[in-house]
C-alpha cells in the first residue's frame, strides 16, 4: 500500500515537473496539463480536519466542495475550541489538517512538533456587540455597555474571544462589569439569542451566523483586537497530498470567497 502510494507521489512530482516545464512554453499547454491529468495525479482518500468551532459552517461547505472537486476524497471534521483541539492533537489524535482560531494555539501546536510546514494565515475575525433583536436597550457604542443596569455577557479572559475583549477594554479605557464570563463564544451568543442579557461581545461571524436572532452593533474600537486564523498540514498526516489540497482550497480564491461571505476578513 505504502509503495503504491510513494509511486503515486513520485508520478505526481514528475507530472508537476513536466507541467511546469511545458507551461513556460505556452499558456495552453499548462491549462491542458492542469485540467486533464493522468489518473495518478488525482487526489483521493480520506482526510481529517481539526478546525476551530467558529469555522464550522464555512469549512463544512469547503469540505463538500473538496469532495465534489476530487471524487474519491472524503473530508471529516472535528470542530471544537482551538485549545481543546491542540490538547487532543498532543495526546495523539489522528488528523491531517489543523485550523486554529488564534495564532496562540497554532504556536502551541508548532512548539509541540505537530505541524509539517509553516502555518498560513487565512482569515481574521473581530469582535462585535450583539443585542437581542431590535436592540431594546439602544446600545450604540462600546462605552454604552458600561452604562448602569446594562447586563453584559462576555467571554472569560482565558479564552481567545475574552482576551480580545480585554484588549478592547484596555484600548478604550472602558471597564465592563459583566454579569457572566462564559468559557465559549457560543455560550455568549446563546445568552443573547435566548434574551437573558442585554448585550454581548462575540465575533462578527457569530453575529452573522445567528441571523435575525440578534442585532449586531459594530464599534470602531474592535480593530484594536484582531484574531488571526492560521491553518497547517500536520506531520502525522497519512494523506499529505490531500491535506495540502484542502489547505490550498481554504487559502485560495474559492475558500476566501466562502469565508468572506460568512463575515471573515482577509488576513
Amino acid at each position, binding site marked *: 500500500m505504502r509503495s503504491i502510494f510513494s509511486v503515486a507521489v513520485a508520478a505526481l512530482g514528475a507530472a508537476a515537473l513536466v507541467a511546469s516545464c511545458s507551461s513556460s512554453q505556452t499558456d495552453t499547454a499548462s491549462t491542458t496539463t492542469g485540467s486533464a491529468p493522468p489518473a495518478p495525479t488525482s487526489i483521493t482518500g480520506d482526510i481529517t480536519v481539526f478546525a476551530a468551532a467558529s469555522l464550522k459552517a464555512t469549512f463544512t461547505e469547503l469540505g463538500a466542495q473538496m469532495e465534489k472537486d476530487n471524487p474519491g476524497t472524503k473530508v471529516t471534521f472535528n470542530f471544537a475550541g482551538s485549545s481543546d483541539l491542540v490538547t487532543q492533537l498532543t495526546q495523539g489524535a489522528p488528523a491531517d489538517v489543523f485550523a486554529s482560531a488564534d495564532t496562540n494555539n497554532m504556536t502551541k501546536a508548532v512548539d509541540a512538533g505537530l505541524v509539517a510546514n509553516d502555518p498560513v494565515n487565512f482569515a481574521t475575525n473581530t469582535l462585535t456587540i450583539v443585542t437581542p433583536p431590535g436592540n431594546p436597550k439602544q446600545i450604540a457604542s462600546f462605552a454604552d455597555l458600561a452604562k448602569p443596569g446594562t447586563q453584559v455577557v462576555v467571554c472569560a479572559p482565558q479564552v481567545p474571544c475574552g482576551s480580545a475583549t480585554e484588549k478592547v477594554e484596555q484600548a478604550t479605557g472602558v471597564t465592563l462589569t459583566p454579569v457572566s*464570563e*462564559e*468559557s465559549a463564544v457560543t455560550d455568549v451568543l446563546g*445568552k443573547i439569542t435566548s*434574551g*437573558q*442579557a442585554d448585550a454581548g461581545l462575540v465575533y462578527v461571524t457569530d453575529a452573522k451566523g445567528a441571523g435575525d436572532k440578534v442585532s449586531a452593533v459594530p464599534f470602531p474600537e474592535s480593530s484594536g483586537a484582531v484574531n488571526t486564523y492560521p491553518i497547517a498540514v500536520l506531520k502525522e498526516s497519512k494523506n499529505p497530498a490531500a491535506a495540502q489540497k484542502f489547505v490550498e482550497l481554504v487559502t485560495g480564491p474559492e475558500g476566501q470567497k466562502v469565508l468572506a461571505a460568512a463575515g471573515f476578513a482577509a488576513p
Partner: protein
Amino acid sequence: MTEGRRSGGLIQVGLPTWIYLPAMVGALFVIVPLVAILLKIDWPNFIPLITSESSRAALVLSLKTATASTAVCVLIGVPMALVLARGRFPGKSVLRALLLLPLVLPPVVGGIALLYTFGRQGLLGHQLQLLGIRIAFSTTAVVLAQSFVSLPFLVVSLEGALRTAGTNYENIAATLGGRPTTVLRTVTLPLVIPGLMSGAVLAFARSLGEFGATLTFAGSLQGVTRTLPLEIYLQRETDPDAAVALSLLLIVVAALIVIASASHRLAGPV
C-alpha cells in the same frame, strides 16, 4: 426480600472464578483514571493552585450552593417521596416517571428547560420581573439548576426506603389512635432517617458536580455563578495544572461524601 436468605442447611454456592476477570477489568476502568489524575498533579504548586483567589471563590460557592440545593431537595423531596410511596391516586406511575425524568436527562437539557421557565423571556420570567426578581446570572439560578438535577436522587432513595420499611408500624400506630400527622412524625420519618440521609448525601454530591445545567442556565462569574466544575472547565483552557489540581480537590470531596454515605448505609437497616 426474605427469599434470598433461604439457604439454611444447604451448601452455599460460590461465584464462578471467571467472573473475577471482567469484574477486575471494570474496577481498573474506574480506578486507573483516578490514578492518572494523581500522577498528573503538579505537587510543588498544588497548594498555591487550589488556594488561588478564583479557586477558593469557586470552592466556597460550590459548597454553599450544594448545601442550599440539598436543603431545597429535602424540603420538597420528602413530601414527594411520601406521596409517591404511600399516596393513592390515578396516574401515579405516569407522574412518577415524569418526576424522575431529570435523573436520565442530560443536564444541559435541564438547563435549557430552566432557561425557558425562569429566564427573562421564559414562561414565568415576566411575572418574576414584575416582582423585581432576577434569577438569570444569580446564585439563585445555580441553586435552581442543582436542585432540578438532584431532586430525583433524593426522591428515589427515600421512596425506596419507605417501600422497604413497609406500612406495618404505621398501621399499628393508626389503630392505637395516632392521627396521620402524628404517625408521620413519630413513626414513618424516624424509620426512614437512614434512607433520607443517604438520599441527601447523593443530592449534595450531584449538586456539587453539576455542570451542564449551571453553564446553560446560570452563566459563569467568579463568586456568583462559577462553581468548581465550571472553574475547572475554564482553567483547562490556559492552566491545565490548575484544572488537574482542582479536579483532585473535587475527587477528594466526592470521596468524603461516598465514605459518609457508606457509613450511613451500614448503620441503616438494609
